[in-house]
């Protein structure tokens, strides 16, 4: 019985740690996808500037308030524009960027298929 209790206690402690780690990861994931607008080629996660530190505090606060990752991006996009996101969103301007790899893949596939067909014939 004692061992079973002990097992549960240990299990509980470990499960706690996992949940904390995940929270940190989400914050890191978000700040890594945010461009530090006043730095050169750094994300908010990498930078230690005043702006980046404030954004980190903001992301923390918003996560505590129950904002989702997307809602935080929308919040920041409203204020700073699309440029703050490293991952550009799918829109009128960026559809070519997102679809180009797929198009190239399909063209490549078509060429290979064609060659195979020719070889068979």
């Amino acid at each position: 019985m004692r061992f079973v209790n002990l097992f549960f206690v240990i299990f509980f402690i470990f499960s706690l740690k996992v949940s904390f780690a995940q929270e940190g990861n989400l914050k890191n994931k978000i700040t890594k996808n945010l461009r530090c607008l006043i730095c050169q080629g750094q994300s908010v996660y990498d930078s230690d500037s005043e702006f980046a530190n404030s954004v980190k505090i903001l992301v923390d606060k918003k996560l505590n308030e129950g904002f989702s990752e997307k809602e935080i991006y929308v919040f920041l996009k409203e204020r700073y524009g699309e440029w703050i996101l490293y991952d550009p969103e799918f829109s009128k301007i960026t559809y070519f960027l997102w679809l180009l790899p797929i198009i190239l893949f399909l063209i490549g596939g078509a060429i290979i298929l064609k060659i195979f067909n020719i070889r068979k014939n």
Partner: protein
Amino acid sequence: MKIRIFPVSIIFLFIVIFIVFLKGLKNPNIYKPKTDVKKNIPLLNFELFESNKKINSNEIFVDDEFYLMNIWSSWCAPCRDEHVFLIKLSKEKNLKLVGLNYKDNFINAKNFLDELNNPYEIIITDKDGLVAIEWGAYGVPETFLIHKKKIIKKIIGPLNIDLVLEIKELVK
């Protein structure tokens, strides 16, 4: 058949790549934040500088007046340089200056104002920079011209004589 598809597709691909790069070459790559967007001011509760009282943005920015919100800090050197212009602008009749004290120490900020005079009618504080983010600001110094609860002009960086004249013209 075998011979035709390959050269044609490769030539086509190279032409496409060439055009893309040629267009890219002519584009200016310097990122400039948009400064002419007409946005509504954020609805927030601010903490006052002198006391710990809270004040709503609706109470500060009353409809018809022009407001100039300046983000400043005692540790920011360009703020010291632009202070002369702020004092000039504070003498303007239909313009009210609002200061946003950014990530500052109260005593240092107080000394800063004692030394260079206080051009602001109201000063609000921003201890951790979150208020500045709500405004979409990048840092210090930054200035917003507000009319009818809309941001009509945004100046990133210190003020200069040309900008002061431009603001005076807008406020008239």
